[in-house]
């Protein structure tokens, strides 16, 4: 008996570090299990049924296998939504990245006075709580009385149809405004982490600006850069708030704002087809999961 206790004690003493480290993971695991794994499992299960949120199918639902997925890939609206989402993500990616990297370059290279103040202004979109963004932009884009059209009118320019004709452009503009700071912060820290000595050595060897960028800067920011691109795309693929702001409870008949997440939402909560909505949600989750694997791979390198 004593020998057993002694063995246990010895094992604990020998593995104390591992035990403590394992215990540190427990709270995160509990949270992930409760709020992610269980709901995810429910989502997958619901996506294999014809369950509805309300009505007869909420009471008498049944297992339908992959029917929701088959219905989804044969649904023209799903592909319209996929098309809208890809366009939105692609253009947002370019703009969020370009604007963000320009701001990052300004922050790291510029020597103008008041740079800190300008940087603080750059960071304003991320300082405004996300819940406020739609309210701010609704007042900006309102076609008759909105701030943007009032400014255009002041300069004698024709007012724009921000909420209809240019609704996709508006969506991307808001997303860029709210999201470029992410690129700016990430890339600014990447630029800052490059030792100045590398450039000095390059100068000694007579390297041009382009050569310094290609041989020093680019290799050293390559991975943060790829990571940034993946994270932006991952963030945008399941965007919801701004698209919902321009759309509302039911899909716009022209479908211009029907991002995948909104399509899933409308299916589940407007048409109450919960099973179908979960199937779309699961497809989005798979896309995000693949991007996360890619991100982990890049981050590990």
């Amino acid at each position: 008996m004593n020998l057993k206790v002694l063995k246990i004690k010895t094992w604990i003493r020998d593995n104390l570090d591992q035990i403590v480290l394992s215990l540190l993971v427990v709270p995160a695991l509990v949270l992930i299990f409760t709020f992610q794994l269980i709901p995810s499992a429910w989502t997958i299960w619901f996506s294999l049924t014809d369950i509805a949120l309300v009505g007869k199918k909420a009471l008498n639902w049944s297992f339908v296998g992959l029917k929701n997925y088959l219905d989804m890939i044969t649904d023209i609206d799903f592909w319209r939504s996929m098309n809208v989402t890809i366009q939105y993500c692609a253009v947002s990616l370019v703009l969020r990245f370009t604007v963000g990297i320009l701001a990052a370059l300004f922050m790291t290279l510029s020597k103008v006075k008041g740079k800190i103040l300008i940087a603080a202004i750059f960071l304003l979109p991320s300082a405004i709580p996300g819940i406020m963004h739609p309210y701010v932009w609704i007042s900006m884009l309102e076609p008759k009385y909105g701030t943007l059209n009032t400014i255009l009118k002041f300069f004698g320019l024709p007012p724009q149809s921000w909420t209809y004709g240019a609704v996709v452009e508006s969506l991307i503009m808001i997303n860029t405004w709210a999201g470029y700071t992410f690129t700016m912060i990430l890339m600014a820290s990447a630029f800052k982490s490059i030792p100045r000595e590398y450039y000095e050595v390059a100068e000694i060897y007579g390297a041009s600006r382009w050569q310094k960028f290609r041989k020093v800067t680019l290799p050293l920011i390559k991975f943060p850069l790829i990571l940034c691109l993946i994270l932006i795309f991952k963030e945008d693929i399941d965007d919801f708030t701004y698209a919902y702001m321009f759309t509302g409870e039911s899909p716009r008949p022209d479908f211009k704002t029907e991002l995948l997440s909104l399509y899933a939402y409308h299916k589940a909560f407007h048409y109450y087809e919960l099973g179908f909505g979960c199937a779309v949600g699961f497809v989005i989750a798979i896309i995000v999961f693949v991007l996360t694997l890619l991100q982990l791979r890049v981050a590990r390198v």
Partner: protein
Amino acid sequence: MASTTKIIAAAIVVVIIAAAGYYWYYTTSQPRTTEITLMTKAGLWADFIRNSGVLEDYKERMLKEKNVKVEVTIITAPHRGYGEKLITSFAAGSEGDVCWVSPTDVFRLAETEYLLDLTPYVSKWADWEKFYPAARNAYTIGGKVYAVPNDAATMVLYYRKDLFKKAGLPVPWQPETWDEVIEVALKLKEKFPDLPMIIEAWYEEQLPVYSDGGVIYDPSDGKFIAKSPQLLYLFKLYYDIIYKYGLMPKEFKLEGWDDRKLFAEGKLPLMIDGTWCYTEKWGPNGPYPIENREEVIGYAHPPSSGRPNNPHGKYPNTFRDYAWVISARTKEPELAFELIKELTRADIMAKWGYETSHLIVRTDAMIGDYAKDKFLEWNTEALKYAVPKPTTTLFNKYMDALKEVLRNELLINGRTPEECLEIFAEKVTEKLGEENVKEIPIP
């Protein structure tokens, strides 16, 4: 000695009986404490309940009549997306004991057995007979009552009296046909070429079908109408207003203009909107107050198409309203129903109607300020022309198809009424299923 013991034993028994009796009396005479949750829209709706004194009256009555101390907790959800929040709450089991619902949601919820059958409660309630039959019937499914109506609203043809006078048009004005509306709108356009007009029943797009004596749903066989002369009339009317006469700018619908604001600013001479706009939007506490409303705002019934013997009457209209339901999961069904009785009291209904311009749905509620309000008195009369919504869960899908065709095909693609009708028939059949639709031949 023995007798002393007996006396002591008897005394103990008496004391125990007396104590038990006192305990029984004490516990039964003390009020029971319980809680009722009430779910409604945030803002105007919840504020009215909080400030009208109705909850205090209810609590007092429950204490007096039932010896129950009730705490009422109000759960709110924003106006936008309220229906979705409500349905989700029911699905999640987090709904209130008493909930504020739209008619289309009542049928969905009843179908899912989420709602308490109120038939045994209303059958014992003398006031139930005072509700308008149309309102009572609107919530009766298969002979069972699932909701108590709270208010009603119709579509109103609003016009600016000042602009009418400037254009030399008669005030007051009540057109008898849609052709007359177009005629007047053309005169207004001639006088005010820059001002748009909103001659469209906003979210009640089906209105012209009723104007022409048709229906969108046939309760006799439970089928929706995919094609009919009246649906063709609907597409023709909207087509003419937009394209033939250029009266309504397409951008209004596509860009979502704030027509109520434009009307308040005198930039919109004519528009169709709901009863509630009169006070909720243009009243002294509304977002766009209009001073001297009676002098500025003119109102008329939406007219008919002119087709003789319209079964919906002279001025066919739509019927919008809200009602109260009780969750089937409530632990206090009696108290929940008592709360609904309080919320739909004649004086409370009249007060709500007056403060927000919603119409009363019980015959004895034409009292107080409501009865003195000319607009409300006039609009309450319009209820007799109102066609209730189809009481089926497919109604939303039908309306989605109609909105989609109006927007995509008529507004964006500029298709002819005949083309729109064909596309609509196809779409509605696809959305609702062949077994749920039928076509009425077009002569």
